[in-house]
């Protein structure tokens, strides 16, 4: 058997049809072809991910002096609405009071704003259900209300009622000075 493996052409050899050797060649060739196909397929798939220029435009600076007390401003960030709300004392108090309420996505008001900046709430303005833009002042909790499927958020942007699974997202941001924030 051994000499027929090393020498003879298996097709013509009397007992040369060594299955393990032939199988190995078939499997190796098949795997190589699959691997080659995958390396070609990946660029075709990955081209749909955010392009370089889309990623480069991903941060924005905003001057907070434009927002009066009790007012909120919606700006566009990464194609999405961004809520910048100048909260009143009453709103902050209501949010802190509800820290102990039953929350679907538990979070204290403390962690939803930067330390010492309780009056500034920066949130991504898309409902965590299916991405509609909630409006401020509606709903049962004095915060935001999403008209699409009826999610209610409180004055800290926490989900209180409706189909949305999580709180309005707080983006990555930092205070560059007392009056300027950089988001992203």
């Amino acid at each position, binding site marked *: 058997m051994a000499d027929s493996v090393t020498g003879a052409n298996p097709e013509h050899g009397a007992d040369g049809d060594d299955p393990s050797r032939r199988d190995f060649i078939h499997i190796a060739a098949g795997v190589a072809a699959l691997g080659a196909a995958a390396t070609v397929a990946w660029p075709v798939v990955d081209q749909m991910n*955010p*392009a370089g220029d889309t990623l480069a435009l991903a941060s924005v600076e905003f001057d907070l002096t434009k927002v009066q007390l009790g007012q909120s401003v919606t700006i566009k960030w990464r*194609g999405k609405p961004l809520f910048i709300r100048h909260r009143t004392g009453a709103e902050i108090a209501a949010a802190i009071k509800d820290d102990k309420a039953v929350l679907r996505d538990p979070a204290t008001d403390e962690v939803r704003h930067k330390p010492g900046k309780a009056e500034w709430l920066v949130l991504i303005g898309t409902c965590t259900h*299916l991405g509609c*833009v909630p409006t401020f002042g509606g709903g049962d909790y004095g915060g935001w209300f999403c*008209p*699409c499927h009826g999610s209610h958020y409180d004055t800290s942007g926490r989900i209180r009622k409706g*189909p949305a*699974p999580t709180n309005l997202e707080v983006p990555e941001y930092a205070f560059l000075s007392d009056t300027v924030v950089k988001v992203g």
Partner: protein
Amino acid sequence: MSGHSNYIPKTGFERWLDARLPIARLAYDSLVDFPTPKNLNYWYTFGGILALCLGIQLVTGIVLAMHYVPHVDHAFASIERIMRDVNYGWLIRYMHSNGASMFFIAVYAHMFRGLYYGSYKAPRELLWILGCVIYLLMMATAFMGYVLPWGQMSFHGAVVITNLFGALPLIGQSITTWLWGGFAVDNATLNRFFSLHYLMPFMIAGVVILHVWALHVTGNNNPTGVHVQSKADTVPFHPYYTVKDGFAIALFMLMFAAFVFFSPNALGHPDNYIPANPLVTPAHIVPEWYFLPFYAILRAVPDKLMGVLLMFGAIAVLFILPWLDTSRVRSLRYRPTTRMYFFIFVVACLVLGFCGGRLPDDYVIPGLKSFQLLDADLNSMVWLSRFATAYYFAYFLIILPVMGLTENPLSQPKSISEPVLSHSAALPVGAAASPEKRG
């Protein structure tokens, strides 16, 4: 396409062609000589109507693409330019947008016909599944097409539908970012939707070829559900069904034209004539009418992931239908109990469509406040859509499997010809049997 061929090339050119590319033979065998059950009723004309719908969408779509600009800054304006300035642009666009609705009217009629006469049962399982694939492709195409005008409904519809994939655990967020090509629905999204919207109709056309091929292997089902047994049961496709289909197409086109010329926006939504604004969502966001039943299923479930799964499950269940229906009898004509459940199923689908177009908290019976059941008023659209959703799934997963085992079907005719030709007392009222013996 299968079996023997009766095509005889008549001219020298036809003989020359037939020896090289027998395309005339293929056309003759599938469209002229094809033996078709002689008892097909008008419910069987929707296949032809659908082929025409696809043709209309392709032609009008290719023309629209010559004028449309797939860019967030120009898309809306380019549509308005088509409506106002391009010669006959208004006509072509209204044909295309209403054509989508007509396509779905026809496909729903076609599907309910298949459900009623058991056209999905062996040996036509693959024929049915190919049809389901076409339906799925149609939904994807229609959704992406609706996004292209970049109006408020376009934009926020795209946001909601793409966010559905975000409900998947772990990979959801990466998938939506990948679908968007950014961090939100934006220009990259519009561009790829345009590309895919142009591609998919041709994929549909490809699957339609497979669908017709499969049809021509097994042959048509028919209202009795009984197999064709001899030549006496069939007539050639031409002229019998070319004429019958032609008449149905003429009637269908009458309805189509009535929409295009007299109420071209009746099936659309006025909010889509407002340019897309990512910062404001319309107060009442609904999909096009043909998606409403699935939208109602989505909203019937309080959990985001479960809602999405159930919505896709409503379509997935169609794919395994051939193995869910355990009955040996095809046509519901001979299954009176199941037939009753079938009509309730049709009503459930209509109810879901009705619920999908309303706000979840709307009352079903206006002004009547009943009582709070779990999370919503019992007299609300939420609960109505829950009942209808439960029935939708029960019909496929419980009623059809169980009925096939428990019900006593009526006796089927021995052949397609028998109920017409025999003098049986069980003759259906009004059947044109033995007209020579009348009066």
